[in-house]
C-alpha cells in the first residue's frame, strides 16, 4: 500500500533527523548521548524482531542467539585473523541469517508453539555452547572476550561516543527503512496474512514457508549486525550478556510495548523502555537485584492482557489529529 508522502511527513522526518544529528554538539552531556545511543540500539533490535515476530506473527523467543552470533563472529574474526569488524559485521549477519533459516526450516512447518519452543531451545543451546569449558579455547567461555578499543576507525574502534552515536542512528534508520519497505510491499501483506491465518494465506497462493524463512532471515541479519555494534562499543562480550534468554525477552518487550507489526512501534517501545531499564538497573541493580526484571515480567503480562497492540495506538490518534489540523493528508485510498 503506497502511503503518499505529503510534504508534512517529509518535513517531520527531515527535522527529526536534523535534530538528532545536531544533538551531540548541542548537548554537552555525554550521558544523554549515551542514553540516546542505547535507545537507538534497542530500537534497532526491536525493528529486527518485529519483522518475524510482529509482521509475520511468529513468536521468536531466542533472538539473542542471532545477536550473539553476530557479536562473536566479528570479534573472533578480528582477534584471530585481524579481519576488520566492519567486514566481520557482514559475515556475522550472514551467519545469523543462516542459523535462522536452519532453525526455521523444520520448525515453521509445525504449529507456532513449537516454533517458539524451538527458538528458546536454540537460544539456550547457543549460550551453553559458547559458555562451555569445551569451547573456551575458541570462544573464551564464561570469561568472555575483550576487544581492545583504540582509536582505529578502520577496525571499527572509536574512543568517544559520537561516531558510535551516528553509526547506530544510521543503522536504526536503515532498519526502519527496511521495515517500511516490507510493510508497503506484497511481501509485507503476505506476512500479515500469515499472521492472521496461515492456512487461509496458503489458499491464496502464498508460499508461507518461504515467506516466513525470508522474514526470519532478514530479522536475524539485523540482529546480527546489532551484535557487532555491541561488541565494538562495549569492548567486552560474554555468552550471558549476549545470548541469554533475558536478552531475548527484552528484545521482544521493546516491540511489544511499542506495538507489533508497525514500523514505528519498536522505536516508541525503545524510547519508553530504555531509559527506565537503564535507570533501574543502574540505580537499583545492586541493592534490589531482580527488580527490573520482575518489572519486565509484569509489563509483559499487563501489555498482553490489556493493550496487546502496544502504545503506538495512542500516538496514532494523536498524529492523525495533528495531520487533520494541518489538512495536508492526501486521500489515502488504501492505507490503514
Amino acid at each position, binding site marked *: 500500500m503506497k502511503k503518499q508522502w505529503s510534504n508534512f511527513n517529509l518535513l517531520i522526518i527531515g527535522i527529526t533527523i536534523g535534530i538528532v544529528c545536531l544533538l551531540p554538539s548541542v548537548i554537552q552531556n555525554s550521558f544523554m548521548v549515551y542514553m540516546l545511543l542505547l535507545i537507538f540500539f534497542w530500537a534497532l533490535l526491536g525493528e529486527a524482531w518485529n519483522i518475524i515476530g510482529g509482521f509475520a*506473527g511468529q*513468536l521468536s*523467543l531466542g533472538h539473542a542467539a542471532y545477536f550473539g552470533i553476530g557479536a562473536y563472529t566479528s570479534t573472533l574474526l578480528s582477534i584471530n585473523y585481524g579481519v576488520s569488524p566492519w567486514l566481520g559485521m557482514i559475515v556475522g549477519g550472514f551467519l545469523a541469517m543462516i542459523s535462522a533459516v536452519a532453525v526455521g526450516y*523444520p*520448525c515453521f512447518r*509445525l*504449529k*507456532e*508453539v*513449537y516454533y*517458539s*519452543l*524451538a527458538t*528458546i*531451545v536454540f537460544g*539456550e*543451546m547457543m549460550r*551453553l555452547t559458547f559458555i*562451555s*569449558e*569445551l569451547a573456551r579455547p575458541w570462544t573464551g567461555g564464561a570469561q568472555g572476550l575483550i576487544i581492545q578499543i583504540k582509536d582505529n576507525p578502520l577496525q571499527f574502534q572509536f574512543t568517544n561516543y559520537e561516531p558510535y552515536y551516528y553509526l547506530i542512528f544510521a543503522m536504526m534508520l536503515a532498519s526502519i527503512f527496511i521495515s517500511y519497505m516490507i510493510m508497503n510491499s506484497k511481501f509485507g501483506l503476505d506476512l500479515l496474512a500469515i499472521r492472521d491465518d496461515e492456512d487461509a494465506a496458503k489458499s491464496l497462493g502464498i508460499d508461507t514457508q518461504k515467506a516466513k524463512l525470508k522474514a526470519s532471515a532478514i530479522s536475524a541479519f539485523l540482529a546480527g549486525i546489532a551484535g557487532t555494534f555491541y561488541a565494538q562499543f562495549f569492548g567486552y562480550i560474554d555468552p550471558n550478556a549476549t545470548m541469554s534468554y*533475558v536478552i531475548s*525477552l527484552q528484545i*521482544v518487550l521493546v516491540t*511489544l510495548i511499542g506495538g507489533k507489526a508497525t514500523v514505528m512501534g519498536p522505536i516508541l517501545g525503545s524510547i519508553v523502555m530504555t531509559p527506565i531499564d537503564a535507570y533501574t538497573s543502574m540505580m537499583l541493580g545492586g541493592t*534490589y*537485584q*531482580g*527488580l527490573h*526484571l*520482575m518489572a*519486565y*515480567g*509484569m*509489563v*509483559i*503480562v499487563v501489555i*498482553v*492482557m490489556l493493550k*496487546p497492540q502496544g502504545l503506538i495506538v495512542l500516538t496514532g490518534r494523536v498524529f492523525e489529529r495533528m495531520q487533520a489540523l494541518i489538512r495536508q493528508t492526501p486521500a489515502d485510498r488504501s492505507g490503514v
Partner: protein
Amino acid sequence: MDLTQLLIQGLIAGILLGSLYSLIGLGMTLIVGVMGIVNFANGALLMLSMYAAYWVFVYTGVAPYALFIVAVPLLFFVGMAIQRGLIKPIIHASYEAQILATVGLSLFLTNFALLMWTADYRSVVTPLSYSSIMIGDVTISIARLIASGLSALTGVALYIFLQRTKMGKAMRATAQDRVLASLLGVNINRIDSIAFGIGSSLAAIAGVLILPIYYVSPTIGDTFILPAFATIVLGGFGNFIGALVGGVIIGIAESLTAVTFSSEFRQVASFLIIILILLYKPEGLFTRRLRE
C-alpha cells in the same frame, strides 16, 4: 569403575532423575491437554514450592517430606489463582499472547524470588541428603530413590484420578473436545482451574522431593523446565503415558550424556531430543499421527 559399571550407574541415576521429569512433565502435559496452554511458569512454580517448603523447614524443623502438607495445597491454590486471573482471560487470545503471559509470569516469579530471598544458595541438610545404598557396585542415593518412588506413586494416583473419578473423566473429556464437553454439561472453567491447580501441585511435589537433593535458588526452576519441555515434546502434548515414559527417557539420556561426556552437556541431551522429535515426529513418540 569400568565402562559398563559407569553406564549402569548412569542408567540408574537417569531413571531416578527421569521420574522427577515425568512428574513435572505430567503436570505440564495435563495443562496443555486440557487448556492448550504451555505453562512456561511451571519451573517457577516448582521453585516457589521449594522456597515455601524451605522456609517452613527453617522455622519449624518439620521433616522434609512432611512439607508436602504445606507446599502442595499452597501451590494448588496458587495454580488456580493463576488460571483464574491470567489464563482464563486469554484462553481465546492468540497463541503469542498465551505464551507471553506465562513467560512474563515466569520472569516475574523468578525475579520476585531473587528480590525477596537473594541469589544465595540454600539447602536443607538432613541425614538423608548424603546417604546411599549399594547394590552390587552401583551407588544409589536414598533421597533420589525416595523421590523416584513418590513420583511414581503420584503418577499412579493421578492415573486413578483421571480414570476412575467423575472429575477426572470430565477432565479427560475436556482435553479431548472442549466444546463437546461443555455441551455435555461439564463446567469447563472449573475443570480448567482444577487442572491448573493439579499441574502446579505436581510441580510442588517435585519441589519438595528435590529439597534434600538440590540447592534452593531462584533459578532452580530454569534447571528443570527445559527437561520438562523435552518430556512433553517427546511424549506428546497432552499424552499421559507419553509424559511418564518420556520423562524417564530424558532422564536417562541426560544422565548417560553426563557420564560419557561431561556434566556440562546434560542439557544438550534435552535439546537434541527436542530438535529430533520436532523434525521427525512432532506429535511425540506416543501419539498417533494426527496432523496432516
